[in-house]
């Protein structure tokens, strides 16, 4: 089998973080892939909630959108969008919010709104979607992002979803009660917030990645944790399952929709 691509690696590393039985509010893209992979491999009772209102969805392929028909047909129940945000997310039913972003900064703030100035943006990104409330209301948040200097920045151009703001106790002082981003998964490493300063610290390096690689690809002066360790490489099973899922997805989605 060929080695895992950066995207496959992120997906597999992320999937391992999801424990069986966890209630997970999933965004589209790699978060959704990671959650599906986890459910099919080690966490059969993982409960997936999508913002389209599908609760307990069990997709067998990767949805392209968060409202794909497969999410509805495999779900335990499909509720209105209003209900999913008020009764389920805001009601405190979600253990893990699983998000992507265009930028993440040193204190785990997420940007998915604009690059440049809000009023005259260089790049207009899609925007907040469910992210600000997922970040504030799930008990903890996992963030997945491709690792490069334009994405992992000293300070995000726009705080779409609050991480630890300026660090330290800033988040709690704003009245956000949950614990916030607990891990940032990139294709080079994982970061976790320092318990005091809340700065993101590299706690594990993926196989073959050096400290230098991470330093060069990160927009701030990176700190490495004392207990830094190397990520277990993807297993045959993980990689094979992921690829089989990708293949099945491609077959299903290659039709014109009839």
């Amino acid at each position, binding site marked *: 089998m060929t080695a895992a691509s950066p995207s496959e690696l992120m997906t597999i590393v992320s999937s391992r973080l999801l424990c069986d039985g966890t209630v997970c509010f999933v965004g589209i893209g790699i978060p959704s892939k990671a959650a599906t992979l986890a459910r099919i491999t080690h966490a059969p009772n993982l409960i997936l909630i999508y913002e*389209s209102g*599908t609760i307990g969805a069990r997709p067998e392929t990767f949805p*392209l959108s968060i409202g794909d*028909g497969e999410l509805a047909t495999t779900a335990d129940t499909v509720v209105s969008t209003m209900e999913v945000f008020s009764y389920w997310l805001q009601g405190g039913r979600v253990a893990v919010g699983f998000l992507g972003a265009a930028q993440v900064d040193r204190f785990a703030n997420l940007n998915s709104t604009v690059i440049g100035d809000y009023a005259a943006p260089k790049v207009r990104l*899609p925007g907040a979607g469910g992210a600000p409330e997922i970040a504030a209301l799930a008990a903890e948040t996992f963030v997945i992002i491709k690792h490069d200097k334009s994405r992992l920045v000293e300070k995000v151009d726009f705080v779409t979803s609050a991480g630890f703001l300026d660090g330290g106790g800033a*988040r709690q002082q704003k009245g956000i009660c949950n614990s916030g981003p607990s891990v940032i998964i990139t294709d080079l490493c994982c970061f976790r917030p320092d318990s005091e300063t809340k700065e993101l610290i590299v706690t594990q390096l993926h196989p073959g990645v050096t400290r230098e690689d991470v330093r060069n690809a990160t927009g701030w002066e990176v700190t490495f944790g004392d207990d830094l360790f190397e990520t277990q490489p993807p297993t045959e099973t993980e990689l094979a399952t992921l690829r089989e899922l990708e293949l099945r997805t491609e077959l299903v989605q290659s039709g*014109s929709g009839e």
Partner: protein
Amino acid sequence: MSKYYPLADAIQTHIRDGDCVALEGFTHLIPFAAGHEIIRQKIRDLTLVRMTPDLIYDQMIGMGCARKIIFSWGGNPGVGSLHRFRDAVENQYPNEIEIDERSHAAMTASYAAGASGLPFGMLRGFVGSDLVDHNPNLKSIDCPYTGERLAAVPAIRPDVAVIHAQQADKIGNVHLWGIIGVQKEIALAAKRVIVTVEEVVDKLEAPANACVIPAWVVTAIAHVPRGAKPSYAHGYYERDNGFYRSWDAISRSREKFSEWMNEHIMSENFEALYGKSML
């Protein structure tokens, strides 16, 4: 069947220049055919409301229908940008558009407040987010019991709600199922409600607690099979993911977009458009 009209008549009678219009449907049941008719009728200066503008608002914005957008996530799901939307926001092309940007949770609270006859909705929302600094519509209130500060958003009560549903009966009772999004909320929040449906049946066989919108809430219905394509109608046809992917290339350049819209939408070639594939 007095509530039934040809789609063109329904749109022409009930949507006017300058209206606030919400075409809703969360990935599922997006009322594309109705949006296309709005484009063909060259209705202008609309305030367009939608959680996820999706391809339909990309097309409407690109064709110059919009003056303002109220939204929460403006991308092509799983694909990338909405290029016409971006061109309008980044370069004011084809015209400047004002944006009122909220989060999904805030949009649903706005809709529910509109449906509930309340002036605003409240939520535990966007704490610490810069959105608050850029949208003066996002305010806060203090709980009279605990003193906690909560987010407030103004109710949305559009002039017109447009939704697509799987079925209506001859009287005009509407039944939709699967991912039902915010359609009931927006239908009940709006002053006028236009519904397009896949199928007209003698009698709805809706289960007990199904999402049914009674005929007396509906202003006009048009029977438009495949009216949600390239999005999907659960039980009728699937999402045309291929088309969503191709839209990226079609919409990237102003010229190609114009050409495509003229050929496929302005031509009123319904057969080509709602046939087996949109391409």
